């Protein structure tokens, strides 16, 4: 659980360290000055001699603020310890009590957490009476529920761990499991959270004393000094300043440090950042009739990783091109790059990226928004859960074509009907979660039809759907292409689906195109060892096709680990010396087919 020492965390640590030093040294250094009564200097404002003024006995307020640090921190510490111990006991109760009592304990904690701490503190203050003791007990009581909740949450996580299950199966008593296994494992996050609680206790106690409910004279803490200073705020506002600054600084310091520590505590289960996937490619002669014409497309991420490198691709009107590869081959990032949707740190460069014969950089949002249709894998995620289906379709027309709401809505219903969504009127008025998976995907496709799509980019559009629905969606895509004449880039890991749907297949591996061939040649004509492996790994038609490469040992190299040679070499049975040192270019291999492999051409 490493703590990230960002600027704020360091500032917090420094402030807390200063506070601790003040608590130790303050009374020793300034103790006498704080108690020295000076009848000639009563209730003074700021002066050179008394920078923060004096109190009703003429005692120097700066010295008193500096001295009060120890008492304030000590009280806060006491309250925190009381709260933490009570909270941890309360929080572990559910793991040792019988089930019913455990539920009661959990319920109590949940109810108490919802109560503002100050309210609990007031309750205790009534019972325990005015004074430091009552305030400390009260703030302790206010802190306890939070700790109880934290303990419960942490203990529940640990209780699910294998070693606890094992101990339980071995018949280890619950109390022993708690003390031997659970508590030691949650101790660290609990301790890290103490800092935050300490800051809260300090502020809470200052508040109680400020209200006159906490520390009573002749004792004094920061809150009490503030109470005294506040009564004089009209005459000498500066006397309230010192204690206020001390409280604020302490609160900020503990909070900043506590925040960093609590974050570290929460980071026990670190989520790995998702690596962007990687692709390949090869160019050929420019195609004047192509809807999509991509040359040397490269996507770069900071650190020099190129998940897509030098990819070239053309798609003709009405043509369906399948882009196949395992996850990490860069196929989805290629789609994102063409759609202008590469996430922030990624940079897209290209020799040419033409849509309908024009550079995409010169196209307006209106042109792009109506000419490009995108379909994603999970239609539920792709639709905005908060908006009605019809509205999400209609806005394309409203935003880009200035259509009236009624006209846009009419068109939306029409398009929903076009994709065979039953009862389009009713569906348009519903939210996405009220539709089935297949209906949602139809709605997304209909959204693409709101404009006049020239290019449809479908990124794994059927992967999240069940088999029957998959077939319907594929049929629908075919139909839409036939009707609109749009070019389609169909991205999939599933070479069988691609073979059924597409006219042409482009196979990607580690960011590059390794083979390009007509779909009907897939079965007999595939030449590249990787393509062949993909096809060979296809089992019967109705077995699970989600892991097409179960048969090939090894994995695809990460974008920054591709050597100078053929990226497939480590997994290739035909690989030679040359394959590891020199990269094969994409070369013609019979009519309408191109392959990047030394052993094939």
């Amino acid at each position, binding site marked *: 659980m490493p703590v990230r020492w960002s600027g704020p965390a360091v500032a917090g640590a420094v402030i807390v360290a200063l506070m601790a030093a003040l608590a130790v040294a303050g009374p020793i250094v300034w103790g006498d000055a704080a108690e020295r009564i000076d009848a000639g200097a009563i209730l003074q404002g700021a002066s050179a001699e008394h920078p923060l003024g004096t109190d009703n006995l003429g005692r120097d307020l700066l010295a008193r603020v500096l001295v009060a640090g120890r008492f304030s921190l000590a009280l806060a510490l006491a309250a925190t310890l009381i709260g933490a111990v009570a909270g941890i006991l309360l929080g572990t109760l559910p793991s040792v009590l019988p089930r019913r009592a455990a539920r009661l304990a959990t319920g109590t904690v949940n109810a108490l957490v919802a109560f*503002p701490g100050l309210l609990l503190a007031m309750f205790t203050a009534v019972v325990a009476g005015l004074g430091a003791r009552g305030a400390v007990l009260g703030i302790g009581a206010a802190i306890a529920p939070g700790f109880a909740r934290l303990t419960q949450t942490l203990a529940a996580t640990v209780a699910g761990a294998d070693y606890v299950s094992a101990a339980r199966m071995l018949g280890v008593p619950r109390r022993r499991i708690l003390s031997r296994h659970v508590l030691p494992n949650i101790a660290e996050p609990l301790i890290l959270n103490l800092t935050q609680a300490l800051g809260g206790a300090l502020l809470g106690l200052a508040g109680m004393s400020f209200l006159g409910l906490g520390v009573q004279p002749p004792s004094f803490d920061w809150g009490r000094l503030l109470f005294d200073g506040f009564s004089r705020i009209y005459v000498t506002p500066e006397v309230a300043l010192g204690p206020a600054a001390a409280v604020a600084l302490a*609160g900020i310091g*503990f*909070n900043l440090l506590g*925040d960093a520590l609590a974050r570290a505590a929460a980071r026990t289960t670190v989520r790995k950042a998702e690596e962007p996937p990687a692709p390949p490619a090869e160019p050929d002669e420019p195609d004047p009739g192509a809807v999509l014409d991509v040359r040397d497309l490269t996507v770069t991420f900071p650190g020099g990783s190129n998940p897509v490198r030098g990819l070239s691709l053309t798609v003709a009107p009405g043509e369906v091109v399948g882009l196949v590869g395992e996850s990490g081959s860069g196929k989805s990032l290629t789609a994102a790059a063409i759609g202008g949707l590469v996430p922030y*740190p990624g940079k897209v460069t290209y020799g040419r990226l033409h849509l309908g014969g024009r550079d995409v950089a010169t196209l307006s949002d209106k042109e792009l*928004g109506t000419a490009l249709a995108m379909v994603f894998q999970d239609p539920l995620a792709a639709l905005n*859960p908060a908006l009605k289906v019809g509205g999400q379709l209609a806005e394309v027309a409203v935003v880009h074509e200035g259509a009236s709401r009624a006209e846009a809505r009419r068109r939306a219903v029409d398009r929903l009907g076009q994709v065979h969504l*039953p009862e389009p009127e009713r569906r348009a008025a519903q939210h996405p*979660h009220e539709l089935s998976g297949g209906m949602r995907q139809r709605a997304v496709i209909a959204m693409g039809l709101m404009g006049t799509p020239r290019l449809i980019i479908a990124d794994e559009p059927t992967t999240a759907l069940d088999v029957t629905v998959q077939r319907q969606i594929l049929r629908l895509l075919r139909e839409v292409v036939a009707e609109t004449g749009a070019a389609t880039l169909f991205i999939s890991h599933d070479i069988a689906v691609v073979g059924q749907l597409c006219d042409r297949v482009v196979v990607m591996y580690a960011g590059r195109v390794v083979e390009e061939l007509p779909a009907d040649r897939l079965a007999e004509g595939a030449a590249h060892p990787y393509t062949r492996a993909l096809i060979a790994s296809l089992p019967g038609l109705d077995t699970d096709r989600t892991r097409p490469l179960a048969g090939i040992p090894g994995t695809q190299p990460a974008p920054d680990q591709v050597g100078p040679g053929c990226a497939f070499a480590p997994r290739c049975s035909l690989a030679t010396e040359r394959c590891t040192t020199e990269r094969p270019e994409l070369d013609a291999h019979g009519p309408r087919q191109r392959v990047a492999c030394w052993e094939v051409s």
Partner: protein
Amino acid sequence: MPDTSGLETPGTVTGPPFPPPGRAPEAVRRAARRRARVVVRRAVRFAVSLAVLLAASFAMIHLIPGDPVRTALGPTAPVELVEARRAALGLDRPLPEQFATYVTNVLSGNLGTSFITSEPVGEVIAARLPNTLALALLATLLALPAGVPLGMWAAVRTQNGRNRGSELTFGSVTGTAVAVPEFLYAIGLVSAFAIGLGWFPPAGKAGPITYVLPVLALAAGPVAMIARIARVETLRELGKDYVRLARAKRLPARRLHLRHVLPNTLTATLTVCGLLLTSLIAGSVLVEFVFAWPGLGLKIVESITQKDYPVAQGVILVYGAIVLVVNLAVDLLLGALDPTSEIREQS
């Protein structure tokens, strides 16, 4: 063109796929029942909490060490007076009877009589509660429209780790703002704007202008808190597919953020607001003290200091009840607002 209509079975809804209009399909009825069950469960929880609260406020007086009346009246008070008070409070009866009387009284609106002023506690509270609620509500109404856009703006600026500097600044500023307790804001505002510049009256409640400083003091922390939460929520939404699709549609940034992202961040923000409202009600105790605001908070401080136990007991009971009511309201509101809650209840 193949006819594919009616082939698919809806995924989340069972029963006939396309029910004829007008007849509630089984699934809809089941969803309604599920919803009703949730409401009932929440209501039961509320009732139980209320009962516990009543018991706790009753117990409060009895937990005071020694004789509360003697403690309140002081050691010099004549024995007869103490005895008379004890009898008036019913403290000489058996505990169960006292509790029964207490519950009956509270339910009929009788919260006892002040030791100090002999006013009925119920009236005192009724006179002051609106002043406290006004502060808390105004502060919420101010914090929400200030905090949410701030957080969204920060999220859009710092998305995917761009503008690390802004992220750090935002984090430190809001982190600091959250850490400063409301009574320090109150004192700072009073010194600067009431005493220093003389723009606002320093204390009391007399007309709209007196609301300004207390509401600001109360709202400062929550603005930062809401901004932080709105930022996290917005960042999460910005990473979702529907935002990608909306980007693919080339929607203008304003529309993307306001129409698509904002509604999806509101559920979490509203939950926080509920909690915030309850903490604002508590926080108003300190702010009221600074501004001598005639609300419940000032009253409870007075009553504790003066050992006016019936008033303290009544005010704490009312505060507790407000917290419970607000939490119940937030729960029910979220259930009604979130279009996907139905699915979530299922799983």
